[in-house]
């Protein structure tokens, strides 16, 4: 009997809680859906780049009274789901947002795999998908297939080419020699970038003196760094993911791997990177970058910290926010919740965002930052496609001992 009482009480509690969580029904709101990882391997990245910006944007729009439509101003009601870093779950979440919650618009999911996995469903349901955290060489094929998907961060090829270009410029200026040590994480992104980089490095007159991959989730990367150091390189390039970006940098310091050009890929632009390495971050190159000194971005960074309590990263954070601004401006310009008209409007017009003007050309924004560098307390873009304000590159000083 006792057991049955516990069970029924627990069940009643769950039901009551479920009812309490039922979102309030109000006709004068716009429903916006969001699905991204809150748990699983990509949760850390999403907690830095995606979710704070979702919150910031909803806060910004609602605190100015909501979106201005033809039939009055409407506030945003946000419905968010965790995709558990599982593509099947992400697909289901988009379905649920569209058909059960009947949301008016859906914010694009996080990560390349998830962008592509959900693209067919966005397309079928007719929702515009303004992807940000997705880098692929298949952009032309994907935009041809899906007329409602938009890209903002460029392709794998430009991503690697700009790193090589930066190093080539340093070499031509006589700052570094031609010996490059290259390592990569043996997982999707890392393998793709390393394979793309090899021929480009050679073409640019570099000699790859060390070329190793390490498995995703490796706990001890000191052999990798020791090997790289033994090859006596002039530049060190790591196509790395967040955990190994931190681990490789830490090991490079411990083993005193001193090169004038030190590049680690994803997460170098995270505020946590500066937080961990402090003065040692100076001169480290990484994926992304922006021009944080424009008035719009200065204001954005300040507001991001105030509203979410976290620092924005120096790469995809502002771009993610910009993608929401594009959606916001397109909805207001169209003046209704007609998704087809909004998609068409996004295709044809230029938008003013925190990262500067954005205009899609064949559903792909060709203006983005590719390489950044820690200089002082900020991570400045040093290489871009079509964005002004690139800073001059500095040589990386020796590690502080």
């Amino acid at each position, binding site marked *: 009997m006792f057991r049955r009482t516990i*069970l029924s009480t627990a069940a009643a509690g769950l039901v009551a809680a*479920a009812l309490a969580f039922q979102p309030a029904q109000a006709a004068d709101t716009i429903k916006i859906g969001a699905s991204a990882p809150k748990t699983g391997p990509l949760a850390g990245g999403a907690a830095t780049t995606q979710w704070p910006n979702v919150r910031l944007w909803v806060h910004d729009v609602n605190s100015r009274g909501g979106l201005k439509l033809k039939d009055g101003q409407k506030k945003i009601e946000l419905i*968010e789901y965790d995709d558990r870093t599982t593509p099947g779950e992400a697909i289901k979440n988009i379905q649920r947002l569209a058909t059960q919650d009947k949301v008016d618009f859906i914010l694009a999911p996080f990560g390349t795999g998830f962008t592509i996995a959900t693209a067919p*469903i966005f397309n079928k349901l007719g929702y515009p998908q303004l992807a940000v955290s997705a880098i692929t060489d298949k952009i032309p094929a994907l935009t041809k297939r899906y007329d409602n998907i938009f890209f903002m961060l460029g392709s794998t090829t430009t991503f690697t080419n700009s790193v090589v270009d930066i190093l080539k410029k340093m070499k031509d200026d006589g700052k570094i020699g031609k010996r490059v040590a290259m390592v*990569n994480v043996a997982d999707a992104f890392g393998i793709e970038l390393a394979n793309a980089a090899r021929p480009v490095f050679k073409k640019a007159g570099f000699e790859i003196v060390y070329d190793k991959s390490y498995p995703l989730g490796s706990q001890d990367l000191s052999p990798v760094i020791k090997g790289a150091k033994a090859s006596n390189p002039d530049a060190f390039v790591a196509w790395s993911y967040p955990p190994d970006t931190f681990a490789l940098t830490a090991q490079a310091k411990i083993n005193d791997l001193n090169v004038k050009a030190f590049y680690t890929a994803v997460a170098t632009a995270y505020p946590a990177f500066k937080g961990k390495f402090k003065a040692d971050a100076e001169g480290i190159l990484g994926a992304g970058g922006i021009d944080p000194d424009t008035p719009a971005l200065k204001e954005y960074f300040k507001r991001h910290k105030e509203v979410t309590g976290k620092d924005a990263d120096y790469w995809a954070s502002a771009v993610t926010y910009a993608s929401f601004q594009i959606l916001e401006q397109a909805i207001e310009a169209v003046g209704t919740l007609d998704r087809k008209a909004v998609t068409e409007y996004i295709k044809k017009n230029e938008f003013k965002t925190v990262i500067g003007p954005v205009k899609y050309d064949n559903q792909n924004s060709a203006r983005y930052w590719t390489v950044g560098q820690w200089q002082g307390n900020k991570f400045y873009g040093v290489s871009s496609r079509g964005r002004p304000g690139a800073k001059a590159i500095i040589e990386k000083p020796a590690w502080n001992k």
Partner: protein
Amino acid sequence: MTGAEVRNFAVAIVLFALAALIPLTGSGYWLSIGVSIATYMVLSTSWALFSGPTHYISLATGAFYGIGMYVVGLGIEILPYPVLLLIAAVLGAALAALVGLATLRLSGVYFVIFTLGLAELIRQLVNWGQTTQGSSSGLYVLTDISEPMIYWQLLGLGAIVYLLGWWINRSRLGFALRIIGNDEVVAVHSGINTASAKIILFVVSGTVATVTGALLAPRLSYIESSIAFSPMLSFLVVIMALLGGAHRLWGPIIGVVPFMLVWDLVTAKFPNQTTLVLGICFLLIVYAIPHGLAGLVEKYRARARGAF
């Protein structure tokens, strides 16, 4: 066939026919839940074919599933899709036979640990292959195969698994397996070739998991090793099969359906506390129904009979 069997067949056919109607309702949401349920129905039922009678807990489902995905991912631009399914089946069977030969002499916890390692081993081999062969590592599967088609294919595969399970259960092989599960030493002494019996079943279950992965590849469109070889999948299959009851052919499905529905409800209502609420649900399940839902059904059925 006995009267009861005819009745069971009729019930199964009606249920399958009803399930096949889901895509026609036009609700994409219920269809995507249907795909999840069908996936885990196939995986859990085929898992229980082997692990139910023998009590060998296999955590290798993710390994086979991932291989199926990669076969389609690598071959979709070269070969027609049905051929890829066939290749996936053959590869899965071959791997299962190989693994079975090497490991089914292990028992208990050693077997569990080995199968858990298998998915990781294969994933690393795939990565190594991609690094050394210099292909790009994310594989794109851009096809016109729609979600209803994937769903019906999974249902078809499910029907095959049930027929196979029914046939095995009434064959000498099924009888041998039950003896192995009860006492392997006795089985050996009564002249049963325990190794071959176990390998055959392991091959069946591995092949089905591989084909399931191959069927689902077009749904994800983008295959990478961290997604294809997810250890989470292997655990979920075991959890759902045990929730339903692995000792009956119809056990896993009555675990899968409520599990997926409850999980979906939890995800929808508590997006920020999913894992916590799920943990509480697990505790309640283990506390309230230790023998699985099939055990519960059988208990009440026996009680109802007793009342007559």
